[in-house]
């Protein structure tokens, strides 16, 4: 079994996520993990490796390849008092369960006049960068952030991977968690939490005064790298990790733009109708008179993500693109 991730130890995003699941399974009998290959295979991305041996097949439950059925079953089990954590391999596959997510999970509380809360956590991978081509590489977080009635999280750091699950499970409503595939191998020292993870607010990952780089999930490392390059040029960039995509914390964005007067939004989704579009619109609504330059967006090219390495790289936001966008805003 892989190393147990505890505070102050070197760990990976994958291990941090696994430790969060282990803690959830240990601390609450109502919690169970369900999804394709979560048990014997150890999870498609290795996140749940070892949990079957520790908790047994009832609580680490392999499902058929039936996204709609097992997501819907998670909703029903949540209605009946359980606390399911449902894993969907990728956001592309989640579309087979979108009916259950949108028409049931997100809707039942309201449609029933408040009678039927759905305390469910749904985890899935998202994003490109591993040459998996169009049906395994998309970033549809914005689809889900569009839907009232669910909370959408995008843990981008080891700490969020380790500590977001507990408050997500404590939330009485459905929570969708996006784990960017390129983050699983990210490693570092897991810092002890100074406070419970706050699922309502964005985080300032790097304070700065000259420009706001606003991003989430798998693009955070790229935005940080861009901020480092800009710093070497004497441009002090603030990096904001939205981390909760719904409800979106517009106040943190507004306050940052009020300090820096410039904004670049980095979003691996397609530009049209993206979360970047929503953030951009909010800045236009709330911060128009604070801006010294037009808002810049760095998004994926409007193309199904291709397989060939050079094409995939060209389709995705890269650090150089973020630096270039920052220059356009600052110059």
């Amino acid at each position, binding site marked *: 079994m892989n190393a147990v991730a505890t505070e102050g130890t070197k760990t990976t995003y994958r291990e941090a996520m696994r430790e969060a699941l282990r803690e959830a399974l240990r601390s609450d009998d109502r919690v*169970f993990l369900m999804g394709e290959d979560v048990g014997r295979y150890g999870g498609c991305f290795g996140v749940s490796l070892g949990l079957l041996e520790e908790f047994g097949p*009832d609580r680490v439950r392999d*499902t*058929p390849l*039936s996204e*709609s*059925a*097992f*997501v*819907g*079953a*998670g*909703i*029903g*089990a*949540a*209605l*009946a*008092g*359980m606390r*399911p954590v449902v894993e969907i391999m990728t956001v592309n596959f989640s579309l087979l369960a979108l*009916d*259950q997510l949108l*028409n*049931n999970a997100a809707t*039942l*509380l*309201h*449609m*029933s*006049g*408040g*009678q*039927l*809360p759905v305390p469910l956590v749904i985890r899935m991978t998202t994003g490109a960068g591993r040459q998996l081509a169009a049906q395994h590489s998309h970033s549809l977080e914005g689809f889900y952030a569009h839907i*009232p*009635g669910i*909370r959408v999280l995008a843990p981008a750091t080891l700490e969020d991977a380790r500590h977001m699950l507990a408050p997500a499970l404590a*939330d*009485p*409503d459905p929570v969708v968690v996006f784990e960017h595939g390129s983050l699983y191998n990210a490693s570092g020292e897991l810092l002890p939490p100074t406070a419970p993870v706050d699922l*309502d607010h964005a985080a300032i990952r790097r304070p700065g005064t000259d420009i706001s780089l606003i991003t989430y999930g798998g693009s955070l490392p790229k935005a940080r790298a861009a901020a480092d390059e800009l710093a070497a040029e004497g441009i002090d960039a603030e990096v904001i990790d939205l981390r909760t995509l719904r*409800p*979106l*914390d*517009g*106040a943190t964005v*507004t306050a940052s733009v009020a300090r820096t007067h410039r904004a670049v939004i980095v979003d691996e989704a397609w530009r049209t109708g993206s979360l970047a579009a929503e953030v951009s619109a*909010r800045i236009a*609504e*709330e911060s128009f008179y604070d801006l010294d330059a037009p808002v810049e967006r760095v998004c994926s090219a409007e193309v199904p993500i291709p397989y060939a390495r050079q094409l995939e790289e060209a389709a995705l936001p890269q650090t150089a693109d973020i630096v270039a966008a920052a220059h356009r805003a600052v110059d």
Partner: protein
Amino acid sequence: MSAARPTTRTGKDSAPPKPGRKTATAERKADTGPPPVGRPDVRRRTDLLTAMLRIRRFEERCVELYSAAKIRGFVHLYIGEEAVAVGVNEALTPEDAVVSTYREHGHALARGLTAEAVMAEMYGKATGCSGGRGGSMHLFDASRRFYGGSAIVAGGLPLAAGLALADRMRGMPRVTCCFFGDGAFAEGEFHETANLAALWNLPLLLVCENNLYAMGTALTREHAQTDLAMRAASYGMPAWAVDGMDVDAVEQSARRAVEGIRAGTGPHFLELRTYRFRAHSMYDPDRYRKKAEIEEWKSRDPIDRLTHLMRDNGELDDSELTRIEQRITDEIDRAVDAAEQAPEEPVEDLLRHVTSTSAEEVSRP
């Protein structure tokens, strides 16, 4: 080999011959059907008749109120299918769960929701069983474990499997009953759910209300193989085709299925052959059915059928029937009056119940 005909308690096939119907190649569990488990007594039959009449009269009043523009939206009437809701509900306890469709007034009333709560919901009032947010298609009552009210065909099936899964994981001796139509049988969600439920041995009663039409599409135009019970049996679960116009047959088959489920033998499937006398919804001009077909099915009206049976047996006379009808009329009158008088949910509360802590979005820029 000729198409096998389902054997029900009364030995009658509720479905008319269908042109082009394919021949069953597997031995059908329908042929061995659930045996009778004792006839209900007079009191019981009176209760069944009353329950069916209550649904019928409630919906007839809904037609009037819809025409008077008192209630709006899509309204899908259950008239003709009352034996299904009433018969199946007789086999369930208050601890069991029921998942329903958009044609669920009958299920809701049979489950014990008050006419007042349902009518207020039809009016969109604050006192409605869904606080005015659901309407005709989304009736809910958590206290009665009545989980709606789903307007997505087959959308309730996975959810029902989850309710059953939770009971199974916690060792609770409860059954989840999921109603759906023949249209849902064509959806992947039915097959995903049947597979999951059989694979995991879930305490799930799958009740297919085969009324021969998925909206306006006839069974023979939507299914390559129209023998639904046989297809369900292929998942390895007991499956019976039953005359859905005979409340006794429905009740007996449901009881037998529920007994099996409680004994731990996993999901059971009932195909209840029934018919809606009215169109798909109040908007539907019903151009796809022949009048003769409708009249033929009306001759098997489950309410008339039970009434005649009880009269023939000397179990019901005119004065008793009048008393029953009067009680129902009074109840519905009171429900309509209450709905008329009930307060509307204030517009200020529009964003309530979006999330459990609601209205958080409006306070944010």
